[in-house]
């Protein structure tokens, strides 16, 4: 099908505002008479709260409210799956980021001072920092009497038979780190008492509808009394969900308690201390295989550190369990994924959502298998990789175009993988050695059987022919607004400049679920297509009357109503819009898209988990300094089947950004604790890959249109970041003959094969001056 706007490198609809400074991020919003809200956070990672005395803080001049959990009129806890996260801790604190009390004051300094006047008596409790320790019977309990709170499984075939058929067994243990989202904009909201009751919140919120539910429940308000408007977001990567819900609840509580607008902004240190992270995993993989390289049994056990609260753990680990054995044929599979509570930061959604962890293990195992049977990494993957019609570990038959072998071959060719792999493998010893690594994956699109999967987008043509588009799917920098605008423009035959995309407002668009799981384009885009088609039909009806034609003889092309057969221009789009208005016809369309059927049988560990899948492959080329352990990524190929590239620039942005993030995961990033006290709260010690650390990236966009998505488009946000780490790990193995089983592959790990213990302090800083009270961390953020 020929398209005019789909597939083009259209300019992002939000770019001019961001470049010129006109874009308003949450912290840019202010209101008259606003107060500043601050949170008093926990003093211990695990402690019983005996008493909170706020009397002195309340007496401080300029303080307008000091609140504790007692002051919450409605539900005191929130949680999307398991409700156990306190908006303000009342019985216990469970990690250092927990809030204990709130202050609203006329200035930030007064708010800070008030925090220091609140007295909290604690009874410190034993701390558990390691998820495997947490699962032991005698471990300190974080919630109730069991730290185990998730166990997902997948079962296929007969494990005994599978291992009996094997010529050999490979058994390995892997570890992946806890990492921080590192969005450039820390959390911020402005909450204002609403004109006719309720509250209006403007904030850096990713999933507005889930945040709204919790605010309404906490404040005992109907949903229609809580309006959340998304400010332009400075990045999220899955990270502005519960941490923002909690901030929205707190700011709204203060706003309603004082009757004044309340602004809350986290400093970077507060953000890192409080926000949730990507789950660290311990992974035990055991594969049985034959000498020819075919796999007879795959047994995997993963333990995820869920941290202090359940958050998205049940869903994140579910994606892990579905994808834990990768896109490879095997008749006998047994996978168990567990999540445990600890006193670390709670862990939740982060770009990748349970796949980066298992992919590191799967793709490392695949290379170990290749090594064992004397095949090369490409050969072993082509041999075992899924083809169209394959049945997955969960028993799902893949009926779409399974393009795994295509992306693998294209990535390998572009990176000159085989020739280099062979050359580097036999290179003589030298201080600096090169290596090349391959990794691939399949990934279920959208939410899958996690939950209800539907979304709405609104297209509204104005009387002058300009168009307003809005959606329940949000933009956080990934380009959702541009993608949906392009789809609407394509259907309406208009140029992009006619479209203005409104930031999401919970009171003006339907609840479309969260913008997660790379579902923006496939769900929001499908809804945009439907909405535009509704409007198009009306416009063509009016246009046909104007031209004395039938609607199917008319078309909308390049901002004109045209006669299809001749291309003759009958009216401009503006004239058509005016005529439509004059005829009293609606120029407004709500498109609603519900995802195709999925299923899951938790007890059997089987099901049609996702309605379609995407496929990707990465090639990483590295230079390893064998004397220092330093790994330089010198070349990179990233290849993904996106279904259809709606906007090539946005796609490439995802490709490059995903790789940069994946390099950080593989080589640098680690949110580390000592007894559940984070060792790093800013980017001086929490390292992410800079532009200087990212090599030239060759991006290959593969397009196999999928019937499930708009114009054939699928997902790309998360697949791009889930493969770099194993590709780098395999490249290191190729270079130095040793594998890194634990990421990040820091200098010490690569050189020594393990990490030496560290203390959480800077050598130059004396203890007494470093002991900054955690409540002072927020200083100066606003």
């Amino acid at each position: 099908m020929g398209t005019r706007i789909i597939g083009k490198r259209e300019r992002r609809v939000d770019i001019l505002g961001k470049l010129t400074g006109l874009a308003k991020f949450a912290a840019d919003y202010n209101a008259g008479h606003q107060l500043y809200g601050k949170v008093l956070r926990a003093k211990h990672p695990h402690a019983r709260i005996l008493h909170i005395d706020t009397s002195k803080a309340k007496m401080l001049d300029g303080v307008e409210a000091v609140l504790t959990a007692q002051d919450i009129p409605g539900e005191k806890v929130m949680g999307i799956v398991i409700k156990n996260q306190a908006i303000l801790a009342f019985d216990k604190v469970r990690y250092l980021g927990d809030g204990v009390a709130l202050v609203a004051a006329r200035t930030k300094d007064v708010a800070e001072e008030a925090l220091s006047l609140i007295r909290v008596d604690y009874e410190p409790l034993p701390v558990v920092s390691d998820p495997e320790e947490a699962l032991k019977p005698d471990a300190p309990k974080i919630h109730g009497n069991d730290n185990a709170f998730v166990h997902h499984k997948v079962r296929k075939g007969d494990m005994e038979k599978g291992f009996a058929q094997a010529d050999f067994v490979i058994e390995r243990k892997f570890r992946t780190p806890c990492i921080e989202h590192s969005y450039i904009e820390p959390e911020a909201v402005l909450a204002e008492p609403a004109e006719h009751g309720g509250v209006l919140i403007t904030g850096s919120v990713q999933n507005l509808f889930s945040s709204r539910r919790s605010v309404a429940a906490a404040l005992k308000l109907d949903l229609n009394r809580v309006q959340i408007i998304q400010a332009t977001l400075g990045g999220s990567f899955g990270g502005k969900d519960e941490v923002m819900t909690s901030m929205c609840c707190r700011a709204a509580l203060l706003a309603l308690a004082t009757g004044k607008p309340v602004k809350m902004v986290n400093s970077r240190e507060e953000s890192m201390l409080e926000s949730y992270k990507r789950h660290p995993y311990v992974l035990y993989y055991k594969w049985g295989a034959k000498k020819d390289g075919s796999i007879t049994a795959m047994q995997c056990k993963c333990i995820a550190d869920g941290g202090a609260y359940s958050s998205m753990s049940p869903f994140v680990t579910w994606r892990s369990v579905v994808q834990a054995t990768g896109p490879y044929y095997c008749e006998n599979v047994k996978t168990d994924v567990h999540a445990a509570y600890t006193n670390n930061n709670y862990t939740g959604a982060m770009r990748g959502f349970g796949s980066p962890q298992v992919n590191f293990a799967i793709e490392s195992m695949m290379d170990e298998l290749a090594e064992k049977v004397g095949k090369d990494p490409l050969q072993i993957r082509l041999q075992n990789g899924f083809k169209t019609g394959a049945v997955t570990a969960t028993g799902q038959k893949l009926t779409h175009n399974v393009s795994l072998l295509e992306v693998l071959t294209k990535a390998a060719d572009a990176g000159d993988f085989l020739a280099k792999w062979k050359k580097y493998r036999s290179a003589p010893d030298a201080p600096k050695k090169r290596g090349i690594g391959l990794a691939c994956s399949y990934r279920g699109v959208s939410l899958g059987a996690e939950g209800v999967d539907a979304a709405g987008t609104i297209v509204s043509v104005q009387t002058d022919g300009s168009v307003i588009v809005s959606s329940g799917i949000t933009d956080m920098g990934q380009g959702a607004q541009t993608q949906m605008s392009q789809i609407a423009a394509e259907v309406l035959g208009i140029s992009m400049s006619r479209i203005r995309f409104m930031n999401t407002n919970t009171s003006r668009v339907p609840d479309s679920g969260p913008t997660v799981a790379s579902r923006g384009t496939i769900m929001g885009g499908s809804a945009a297509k439907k909405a535009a088609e509704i409007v198009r039909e009306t416009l063509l009806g009016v246009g046909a009357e104007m031209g004395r034609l039938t609607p199917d003889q008319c078309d909308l092309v390049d901002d004109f109503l045209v006669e299809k057969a001749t291309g003759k221009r009958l009216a401009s789009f503006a004239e058509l819009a005016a005529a439509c208005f004059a005829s009293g016809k609606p120029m407004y369309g709500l498109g609603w898209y519900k995802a195709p059927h999925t299923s899951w049988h938790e007890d059997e560990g089987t099901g049609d988990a996702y309605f379609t899948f995407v496929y990707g492959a990465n090639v990483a080329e590295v230079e390893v300094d064998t004397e220092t352990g330093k790994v330089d990524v010198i070349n990179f190929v990233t290849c993904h089947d996106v279904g259809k590239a709606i906007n090539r620039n946005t796609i490439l942005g995802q490709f490059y950004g995903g790789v940069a993030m994946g390099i950080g995961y593989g080589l640098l990033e680690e949110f580390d604790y000592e007894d559940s006290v984070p060792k790093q709260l800013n980017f001086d010690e929490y390292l992410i890959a800079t532009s200087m650390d990212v090599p030239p990236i060759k991006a290959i966009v593969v397009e196999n249109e999928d019937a499930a998505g708009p114009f054939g488009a699928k997902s790309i946000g998360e697949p791009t970041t889930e493969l770099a780490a194993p590709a780098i790990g395999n490249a290191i193995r190729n270079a130095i003959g040793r594998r890194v089983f634990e990421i990040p592959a820091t200098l010490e790990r690569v050189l020594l094969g393990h990490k030496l213990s560290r203390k959480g302090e800077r050598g130059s800083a004396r203890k007494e001056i470093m002991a900054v009270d955690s409540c002072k961390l927020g200083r100066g953020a606003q």
Partner: protein
Amino acid sequence: MAIAHDFEYLKPGTLREAVRTLARYGPRARVLAGGTDLITLIGEAMAAPDAVVDIKGISGLDRIEFKNGALSIGALVTFSDLRDSPIIAKKFPVIREMTGWLASPGIRNRATMVGNLCSAVPCCDSGPILMVYDAVIQVAGPAGKRKVPLSDWFVGPRKTVLKRGEVATGVVVLLPKKKHAACFVKLRRYEGEDLAQASVTVLALAGNSYRVSFGSVAPWPVRAHKIEALLEGQQLSDSLIRKAAQLVPEEITPITDIRATKEYRMHMCCVMLNRGLKAATARLAGAGPEYGTSLI
């Protein structure tokens, strides 16, 4: 970053006035030049001075001068000034080499080399570089001017010999009379802005004479006198370097902190010494890697 701490901001126009002010406040005053260290300390409540004495109003401290084989760097000379200076590029290319890995351009535009010496953190990059040149710090104080050899300058992490009322006005570096070349090797965890986990500076002089210093692996930058004595007059060879590396544990006392472990730092000092010695020697012979090339 907002400063929650109140202090007097004073900007004297002359050195004499600065000294008088500093003498009056004593330890309750801090000198402000670039401010990249001081302001951060105040912001993080790690310093709480009653007075901040800004020396940027004093004329003459912003000069880089090279006269009669002596390089003078004023207290207000920033790392960007050094990086852009033709005389530095020509006569002291290793100083320029060091500035390339020091923080980021934004910081380098503000931060001064003398300030870096006054902060006296163990990981300061100026210290080890200037040490191999036997640099001398110029100090003005109530009792007049005095000169402090860099080897006597540091007395602890974040501690120098500066006394009440004193301010460092510059640093003087003598160009070695013999033909020479140098090399600065800095261990960083990534290509972004990073503090030295360890560093090695080597100055190679004609006639097989070497000066070696280490940074970030002792309470302050240190000269490796034992290694220098071993190398003196010897033709550099792999076996000689191995012997030199064996002396590394006698020269440095690295610690384990959040950035790196003691063991790794020790290991890396040996690797960096090896590469630094070879590169400096090669440069002396007109070959070797260009200045600015990272050896690790």
